[in-house]
């Protein structure tokens, strides 16, 4: 029979919270990175691109471990954050950071492809019509890359819902604090008699992912913004 425990519901809530925060946090940075990759001619672009895409090909556990080293008490980021009283290890913040880093390349890749399909002449036209750089960004570039951005956000959100490897190393698996759906499933499968419970959460996971896809598809259609000229 399908039933969820209190811990399961908390895990679902945490998963949604982590995925939402990670996606929103990564959005401005991801948009900026995509813009640089799509439009700038700067030197070392290939290097930057490789760096951004690294989490896509590295085992998440490796990323988690590197994050743990950086954010640990003796890590360079951990030391800075420690001075202002912020600790991310074994906290929800850690789960958000792990998801943000792992999902980042997916976000950037989608937005970048969308941006590259924009005819650059639209931007030059707006500049000659008296719009400055920021004005052009908000009135031309962002509206024209809206669909791609939405697609990237969806992809990243879904990826964050499923994040496991980096999260378990950086944030641990603490029920009610950092235990998201995949971590809860992992725990059930390693507990005798937990199979049914694991399956329940699997169903939830499938339902959530599917809902995300449907919502993004609907939003996409409702926007009705066509890039075709």
């Amino acid at each position, binding site marked *: 029979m399908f039933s969820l425990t209190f811990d399961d519901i908390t895990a679902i809530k945490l998963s949604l919270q982590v995925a939402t925060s990670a996606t929103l946090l990564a959005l401005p940075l991801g948009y900026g990175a995509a813009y640089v990759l799509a439009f700038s001619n700067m030197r070392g672009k290939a290097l930057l691109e490789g760096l951004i895409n690294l989490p896509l090909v590295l085992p998440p556990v490796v990323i988690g471990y590197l994050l743990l080293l950086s954010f640990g008490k003796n890590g360079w980021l951990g030391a800075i954050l420690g001075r202002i009283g912020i600790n991310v290890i074994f906290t929800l913040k850690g789960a958000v950071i792990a998801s943000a880093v792992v999902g980042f390349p997916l976000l950037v890749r989608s937005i970048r492809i969308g941006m590259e399909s924009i*005819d650059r*002449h*639209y931007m*030059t*036209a*707006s*500049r*000659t*019509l*008296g*719009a*400055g*750089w920021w*004005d052009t960004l908000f*009135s*031309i570039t962002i*509206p*024209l890359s809206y669909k791609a951005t939405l697609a990237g956000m969806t992809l990243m959100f879904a990826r964050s819902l499923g994040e496991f490897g980096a999260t378990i190393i950086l944030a641990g698996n603490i029920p009610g604090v950092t235990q998201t759906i995949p971590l809860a499933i992992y725990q059930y499968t390693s507990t005798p008699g937990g199979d049914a419970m694991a399956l329940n959460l699997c169903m939830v996971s499938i339902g959530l992912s599917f809902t995300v896809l449907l919502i993004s598809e609907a939003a996409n259609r409702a926007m009705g*913004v*066509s*890039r*075709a*000229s």
Partner: protein
Amino acid sequence: MLLEVDLEKRFPGFGSRVKFTLTSSRCGVFGPSGSGKSTLMNMLAGLVDPDRGFIRLNGKTLFDSDRKINLPPEKRKVGVVFQHAHLFPHMNVRKNLYYGMKRRRSGGGDIDPGQLIAVLQLERLLDRRVTRLSGGEKQRVALGRTILACPDLILMDEPLTGLDGQLKYQIIPHLQRVFNEFSIPILFISHSLHEMRMMTDDVLVMHEGAVARQLTTEELARAEACTTGGGYINLLELDVDRDHGDLLSYRWGEVELMVVKSHAAPEGGRFSLSSRDILLFKKHPEAASARNMLACTVRNTYTTEWLVGVELDCRGNSLIAEIVPQSVHELDIRPGAEVVAVMKASAINRLY
């Protein structure tokens, strides 16, 4: 308008060095593709940074490498109408038109959008999506959008090249009406001599990245007529007069011209007539198959490579005929001589 330019720009495999001063408000930049026209346009608009030199428009410095001045495109007040209209696809016609106007900085002109929309005949298109416009309509919207931004100078980069056949010339009356009405200086970039002659008074001829010549458009037309071999083309502006069944008569100033009927709805417009389709007679040929016989006075003659151009005065209108030197001699054609210019009705073709 006063535009002073002295610029240098090097690309791998191509260099551009332009220096000129323009005062006419209807100027053209003429040259084949690859002659540096687009580079010049991009440098004037601020879309490409020159390596060295200066740009001054009406005394205002837009770029000066010595004084480290380089205004961004949005501060130059130099509008651009691109070869492909580049209307913003996520906005309708109205929003496109008002895009530049909303961003106009203080001290802008006083162009009335309603009046401009009327002149460009865009009233019925205002709420339409730009993806559902024809090529000519798109160009008209692009032109309106640029004008409403109230620039001090409008650069037109081959605005008719993307349009085909008849459409190409249909937009010309709109352009002429707009520039007459709103008196905005233009720099018209094109490789088409016809377009140049309809839109400009003075021309810069570009060749391999430099300004080869600066002359009036009429001088260019005569010079080009010799080198291209096609002969000088007279461009006549005619008003419709009467329908004669197979023929239409048009008023050309004080004289009447017969033209073969080719359009369902006869109306005035611009027609072309090759200088080599005009026969000159010393006396009126009483009976001839040609429908047009005009009494003219020779104003002037000039020699081209192997023909003589005869500039005729037809009761105030100018007409150029090209004939061989022997005929000039035999007919005794010199300034002041009276001749009859004869041309077939079918030699006069409608451009728009």
